[in-house]
């Protein structure tokens, strides 16, 4: 596989790799580093790539594994700050500000989900993959993907409604 062939097959999903990495690693810098690292890995294994039927799914799996490894390494080194008991008690906020704010709040809520659900939400609702593809990427049964996705969506919705009601009352 030559460099141009390689770039043509592999570059179209670089944004997806980056977004998935960012979803898991949170920081943009780390996600960029991870993307570069992953593409270097793909480039080194370029001769084996032709054997895979779905290179994109393979790359997404690689991204998932790489980021989870990174997180594991980081967690063993650092203490984490968790602020799940944080409550916004300022009820005098205007409704409009509330709405603008709630987009970034969705981001925070997704961050609190377990990693599997985070991955599935990212792959389904942002990248629009079919359940079968997500199953292949994450090595899960499509039904398991469905269940986890439903759970994630319901959790986010409930949290949103809760916060929404705080704002009104």
């Amino acid at each position, binding site marked *: 596989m030559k460099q141009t062939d390689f770039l043509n097959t592999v*570059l179209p999903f670089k944004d997806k790799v980056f977004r998935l990495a960012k979803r898991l690693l949170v920081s943009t810098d780390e996600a*960029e580093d991870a993307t570069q690292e992953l*593409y270097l890995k793909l*480039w080194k294994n370029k001769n084996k790539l032709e054997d895979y039927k779905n290179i994109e799914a393979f790359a997404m799996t690689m991204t998932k594994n790489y980021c989870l490894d990174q997180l594991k390494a980081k967690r063993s080194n650092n203490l984490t700050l968790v602020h799940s008991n944080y409550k916004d008690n300022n009820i005098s906020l205007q409704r409009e500000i509330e*709405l603008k704010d*709630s987009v970034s709040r*969705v981001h925070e809520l997704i961050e609190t989900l377990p990693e599997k659900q985070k991955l599935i939400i990212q792959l389904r*609702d942002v990248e629009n993959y079919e359940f079968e593809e997500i199953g292949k990427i994450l090595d899960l049964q499509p039904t398991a993907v469905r269940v986890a996705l439903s759970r994630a969506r319901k959790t*986010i*919705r409930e949290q949103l409604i809760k916060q929404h009601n705080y704002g009104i009352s």
Partner: protein
Amino acid sequence: MELANIEKLIEKYDNAETSLKEEQVLKDYFLKSDVPVHLLEYKAYFNYFSESSTERFTKSIPLNSKKTNWKWLSIAASIALLVSVYFINDFGSISDEERLEAEKAYKETQMAFQLISQNLNKGNSVAIAGLQEFNKAQNKVFKTTKK
């Protein structure tokens, strides 16, 4: 799309039973401004997904190619070696013509030096003869003053 329909879709969506097409319908619906109050939290939710799917990776992707560099380096080194060997051999050997010419030049310079030294000797003897004349005259003077 009717509100009842949207509500049905949302229920299906929460159970993860919607197809990608139906999800796109929901996303399009909530991107519009007029959303009933009881569905407002979904607006933020779907807007977030539309927003985050536009994020792009802007950095360059480095693919290092060290292997080819080494290959070219070795080729360049071997060429340099060949060229230097060729030139060293060339300096070591002098052709016969050049040697004859050099000998001729050597003889000519020798002759020129000989000519110079002969003339110098001539000049020397003249000067010495002059000195002897001067000595004779001096002796005469000193003899006369002694007496």
